[in-house]
């Protein structure tokens, strides 16, 4: 087994996903298949190989530090389920 049911349960908690018992069983089985397949990566020797995060790398896309036209607050906040005059209101998580 590449992953156990308890691990899936733990990861689901970290991701704030609610899975019922049946979903947990199914996810464990499917994730196990996928992770076993991904384990094929281990067949490749990557010792000393630099990781690539962007295939076409651009470094430091800078712009002048000056105020430019942007969305007004009302438009920017319009899609939030709850907001004050100038900020989103979200549930406390810490």
């Amino acid at each position, binding site marked *: 087994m590449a*992953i156990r049911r308890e691990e*899936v349960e733990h990861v689901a908690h970290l991701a704030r*996903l609610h899975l019922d018992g049946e*979903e947990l069983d199914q996810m464990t089985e499917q994730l196990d*298949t996928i992770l076993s397949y991904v384990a094929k990566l281990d067949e490749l020797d990557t010792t000393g190989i630099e*990781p690539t995060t962007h295939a076409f790398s651009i470094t430091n896309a800078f712009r002048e530090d000056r105020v430019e036209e942007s969305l007004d607050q009302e438009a*920017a906040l*319009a*899609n939030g389920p709850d907001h004050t005059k100038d900020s989103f209101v979200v549930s406390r998580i810490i």
Partner: protein
Amino acid sequence: MEPYELSITEASERLADKELSSVELTSSCLARIDKTEERINSFISLDSERALARAEAADRERAAGTAGLLCGIPLAIKDLLCTKDRVTTCGSKILENFTPPYDATVVEKLDKQGAVIVGKATMDEFAMGSTSENCAFNIPSNPWNTDYIAGGSSGGSATSVASGQVLGSLGSDTGGSIRLPASLCGIVGMKPTYGRVSRYGLVAFASSLDQIGPLTRNVADCAVMMQSICGYDRRDSTSVDHPVEDYSSFLAEGLKGVRVGVPREYFGDGLDAEVRAVVLNGIEVLRAAGADIVDVSIPKDTRSAGFGPEMKRRILIGTYALSSGYYDAYYKKASQVRSLILEDFRKAWESCDVLVSPVAPTPAWKKGEKVDDPLAMYLSDIFTLSTNLAGLPGLSVPGGFSSNGLPIGIQLQGPHFHEGALIKCGFNLERGLNLETTIPAL
């Protein structure tokens, strides 16, 4: 012939010659949508009123002599491209009521060229999937046989064009999401080089892999759409300031001096016999057009990284792979393998100018067939994903049909910013194959 059957290029000629107005063309498309949408499900939202108003405006622009490249052409766009004051759901219930306060750069660009955006196309939820069956609203059907999947994740973008509802569309491609549905629905789909098209206003799936691109009924239309959407955008910090070629100038016959590589790893055991036959036939067509066919190897290719299709599964995998103790084993390892894949391609470009291969290992399959088998579903991306990992451009061109009448595409890949070379090879492939380009009757 009804106006909706015209290609972008043909319609533009008629619009220019005043044989057709955009209002007539748009009305023809809307009538086609009325007739077919119940079975095809290309759209999450439609706005006929706005489309007709834009068509009227396009007709005025043309009369005033300010017609853009897509003036008056009805198009669809994938529902993860932000549209100001127009709901953008990403195929998810969670964004059912999301109305973006701004337009994506590509939407602005299409509008600037006079395009008529008819509606927002169905897609897998947040683009995660290969069949469009993970859409929270409508599941698009393959126009060639409505019991079959359209492919995904840009399913509606492909079905709307293939079924004659619009003349072209925009999709997005993270691991094959433009090329796969284009191939399965029998149309042309291009995934441009990473950084070629601005991603500003594209709801991200995997930021270092996503790229927006066009789906059209032929390669010439692909060139026009590319011309309209490519270019540097300061609002996307990964956008590349590289000159945009005149893509239509590559629509010339003859491939003398072009080296076409055939990567042997793409023709292994998992490849469907009919798909193999179509691609091999395509290679002969390229050879007949004057190309030098060379054997190449991309050893590391896509038998590497891999995540399942559906949201919860992907969230779990992502969280797991980045959680304490697993980062090195998965994320870092995959990023290192990505370096190896890039190196394989770099070596391939020493001996060839483009690569020819299948797009998908099989033609479309029946809806529901692979829903419970995430790994099998993932493997449909096996020939397209490495293009994204390496940031390369890729093009899917119709290559033929399976014995039960389903389309099969041929994939062309090239070095960074060599979209022109792909258009040139694709155009010659299309000419040489001379496939019947009918729209299914429905």
